[in-house]
């Protein structure tokens, strides 16, 4: 041991501060250039990439929506035919849900969670890198298919038998089903990494009861992903098997069931909404606390509400199927459950209102988005209570009322907090302050445009306009509302444009941010902006729920992690006492290669079932490369061995 001890270098009083930082920089640096870009396992770099890619898909899917709104602006319009329209709404829905909403929430979490935990890198960073590449490949494949006229055209839900082999020949549905597979794999991988990071890599002292609400939100979401995603993977795999190798899972004539697909799809599909929405609640809590200048009121009820939402979210799926003729008594239970989920949402809304009332709100752009969120989300939640009622749903189901409802929940409930969070985290990510004037203009346009675009749709739905129609006859009283919605949609798009333009301009022009420009309380603001590759020179020690408010100038730290090798500190799940010093993986090309091999398998399987057999060979080869043991990675030590600093922290 003495030889290794001599070479071991740890941070601490014995080591000069400048040397520590230089050593850490050297240890955690990735190779330069393109190669380094491909092999990186830095959660900050992968997180930025993930965010940018998700926003790219957001823009593409948004353009599809604008095309639809142009087509629907006037009755009996011939701008877009039924075939292209079917692809437009299917691509829009699928890409927004699978390639934007879920991934972008995970993307921000990949960036923020490890910093908020006070750790140097995410758990399983290679898995996270793999997730990114798989996601990128799946998303590109989906949009390239669309460009090649094999875009999905059966809706984001792809109900059988319409999507089955008999009524959807060709490859369009297969590209949809495989895109699901790609994004599922990516989402599951990230969720595992986030759960482990949150449960095992929190800074010493950050026991569960001191954990920020955002981390709770991501923890709940990640568990939901683990339980929800397998259902849709089953649905899409059964579907693709029915289509490609003649199984009969959904073929009624051979004893299959068309409704089985709906159950599987919605058992995932409803929690999916909460998977998108719960991280947004985390953003709101962070922003409210920072800009109201006080901790969020009712920390414990907030945490319980998040967990309750996560559990109840799995008990609502049948409210998407009230018109299918299921037993009425069963429907009644789902009505009750769907109405009940309004209670935890209400608890959170009231706690934020109390926080804002008691605090001293500072009107910066992120807070404006949160205020917009409260209004829009409450409205969307109330129409959610409406669609939970069986008789009411029988009228509004599959009409524009539902389109209005879920855009209120998803744009108001998730995209508004997301924009607030992007503005809020921008200084941390880039080191520059985002502009306030353009930020406010962007908010104004998005808020007005959003309500103009989607509020009329409530009335359209009640006036009988069904969803997913490529055009409509005039004379049914729908013309004016549709035109209004189109005008609103373009205003909303202009708002998004201003928002992102502001961030792009601020990249260059923004004032230098400093470590903690908003005076926030959580650990990601304890390091410089942008953070160094190793994130923290010394692991922070947490002694309260708001560490940067309680101990603003002198945040205590623990020492004793190696500076000459990548190490993270593993702490106890509940108490966050230091337990083990765990090596953190070096950059590697294997995640990329494995992702490419997996992509080959997934895409190949659309054309021949043999791809599933032969495609496993390259996947196996790359996985063997990935997991080939190296001497360095076998080392794992009790945290307190040879590290007196950590022993003190534990005490």
């Amino acid at each position, binding site marked *: 041991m003495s030889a290794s001890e001599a070479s071991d270098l740890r941070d601490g009083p014995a080591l000069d501060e400048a040397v520590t930082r230089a050593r850490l920089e050297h240890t955690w640096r990735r190779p330069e250039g393109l190669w380094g870009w491909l092999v990186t396992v830095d959660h900050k770099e992968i997180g930025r990439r993930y965010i940018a890619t998700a926003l790219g898909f957001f823009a593409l899917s948004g353009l599809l929506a604008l095309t639809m709104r142009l087509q629907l602006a006037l009755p009996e319009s011939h701008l877009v035919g*039924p*075939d292209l329209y*079917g692809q437009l709404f299917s691509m829009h829905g699928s890409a927004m849900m699978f390639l934007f909403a879920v991934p972008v929430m995970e993307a921000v979490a990949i960036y923020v969670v490890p910093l908020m935990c006070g750790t140097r890198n995410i758990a399983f960073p290679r898995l996270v890198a793999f997730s990114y590449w798989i996601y990128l490949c799946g998303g590109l494949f989906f949009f390239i298919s669309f460009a090649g006229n094999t875009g999905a055209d059966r809706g984001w839900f792809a*109900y059988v*038998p*319409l999507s089955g082999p008999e*009524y959807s020949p060709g490859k369009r549905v297969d590209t949809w089903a495989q895109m699901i597979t790609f994004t599922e794999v990516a989402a599951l991988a990230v969720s595992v990494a986030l759960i482990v990071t949150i449960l095992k890599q929190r800074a010493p002292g950050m026991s569960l009861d001191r954990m920020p609400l955002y981390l709770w939100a991501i923890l709940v979401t990640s568990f939901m992903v683990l339980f929800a995603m397998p259902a849709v993977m089953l649905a899409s795999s059964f579907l693709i098997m029915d289509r490609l190798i003649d199984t009969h899972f959904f073929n009624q004539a051979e004893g299959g069931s*068309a*409704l089985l697909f709906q159950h599987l799809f919605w058992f995932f599909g409803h929690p999916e909404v909460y998977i998108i929405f719960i991280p947004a609640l985390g953003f709101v809590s962070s922003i409210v606390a920072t*800009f109201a*200048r006080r*901790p969020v*009121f009712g920390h414990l009820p907030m945490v319980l509400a998040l967990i309750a939402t996560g559990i109840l979210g799995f008990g609502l799926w049948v409210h998407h199927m009230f*018109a299918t*003729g299921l037993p009425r008594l069963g429907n*009644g239970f789902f*009505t009750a459950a769907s*109405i009940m989920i*309004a209670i935890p949402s*209400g*608890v959170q809304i*009231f706690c934020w*209102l*109390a926080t*804002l*009332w*008691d605090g*001293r*709100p*500072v*009107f910066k752009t992120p807070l404006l988005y949160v*205020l917009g969120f*409260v*209004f829009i989300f*409450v*409205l969307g939640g*109330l*129409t959610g*209570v409406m669609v*939970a*009622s*069986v*008789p*009411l749903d*029988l*009228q509004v*189901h599959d009409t524009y009322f539902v389109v209005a409802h879920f855009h209120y929940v998803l744009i108001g409930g998730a995209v508004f907090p997301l924009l607030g969070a992007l503005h809020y985290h921008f200084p941390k990510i880039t080191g520059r302050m985002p502009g306030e004037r353009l930020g406010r203009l962007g908010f104004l346009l998005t808020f007005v445009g959003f309500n103009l675009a989607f509020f009329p749709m409530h009335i359209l739905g*009640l*006036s*009988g306009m*069904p969803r997913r*129609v*490529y*055009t409509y006859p005039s004379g049914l*009283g729908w013309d004016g509302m549709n035109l209004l919605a189109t005008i609103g949609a373009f205003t909303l798009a202009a708002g998004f444009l201003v928002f992102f333009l502001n961030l792009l301009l601020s990249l260059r022009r923004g004032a230098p941010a400093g470590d903690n*420009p908003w*005076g926030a*309380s959580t650990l990601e603001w304890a390091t410089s902006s942008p953070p160094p590759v190793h994130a923290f020179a010394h692991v922070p020690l947490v002694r309260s729920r*708001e560490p940067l*408010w309680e101990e603003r100038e002198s945040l205590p730290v623990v020492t004793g992690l190696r500076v000459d090798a990548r190490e993270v500190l593993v702490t106890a799940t509940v108490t966050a006492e230091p337990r083990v010093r765990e090596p953190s993986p070096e950059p590697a090309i294997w995640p990329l290669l494995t992702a490419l091999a997996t992509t080959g398998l997934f895409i190949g399987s659309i054309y021949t079932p043999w791809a599933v057999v032969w495609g496993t060979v390259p996947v196996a080869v790359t996985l063997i490369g990935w997991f080939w043991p190296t001497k360095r990675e076998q080392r794992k030590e009790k945290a307190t061995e040879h590290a007196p600093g950590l022993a003190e922290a534990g005490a």
Partner: protein
Amino acid sequence: MNGFQSALHPAGPQALHIERLIWLFTGISAFVLLAVTVALLWAVFRRRERRDLAAEPRPPELRERRLGRVVGAAVALTVVLLFVLLTASFATDRRLLDLEGREQLTVHVIGHQWWWEIRYAHGEPARRVITANELHIPVGVPVRIELTSPDVIHSFWVPNLHGKQDLIPGSSNAITIEADRPGTYRGQCAEFCGLQHAFMAFLVVAEPEETFDAWYERQLAPAREPGNDQARRGREVFLRSACVMCHRIRGTSASATYGPDLTHLKSRQILAAGAVPDTRGHLAAWIADPQGIKPGARMPITALPPPDFQALLAYLETLE
């Protein structure tokens, strides 16, 4: 024509119950939204000494308990309101069943890509009316609609009369409707069913019982014998062209059932499941270029020399 396909213009007891529920939910929702918005604006705009990011975050004080009481009260009120809504929803759901078991007429509605086949049930096979895209019902009589689909999932929806019910291949669903005032109400498929989902509409014509009976008798009759030479020639054109592969005209040898029954084509108000009105000009356009009117429709182009085409139109015009 506003209100011709609308949940807010109920024309039957079912839709009326639901409409009342819609207004109850809307009223309570509006109250909650207003209350939250006012609370939000008050919370952020009430007067304060200092507002800046440098301000030290105040640690929670004893006030927390008072805040807690307010939040608790708000949550309790939420629970009460939700319970009211839940009860109202269940009560309405029960009321929707009132008509069940009292039906005096049963109609099988079969959803096809993209039109509606309508078959009236009757003990005597000879008295079963078969028609398409236009459902006649007597006013004040509960009618049981049995729903099946031979191809993909569709959804039967006439918002002025009731909510929707899906047609699922391999299983059968039913819904009971009643109109309590005469009128024509438009319905539309509400489950995405492929290319022409947008034009899978139908009309429900609610009429007094005598008018309905007269209509029923007329529909039972076979097609009228054409009255002039051109129409007779048109019938020959029909019977030797591709039309007979899909359509039936009772009283002739055309007896296919793939497409809509044309025996009383001209008694209907719409063509191609609502894509166009049933006029001579639209009928001509529909036969000459179905894909131009309804891209993706199963109806092929029937290329005919102009005299034959005119004769065919003349014949079809006699099918009243």
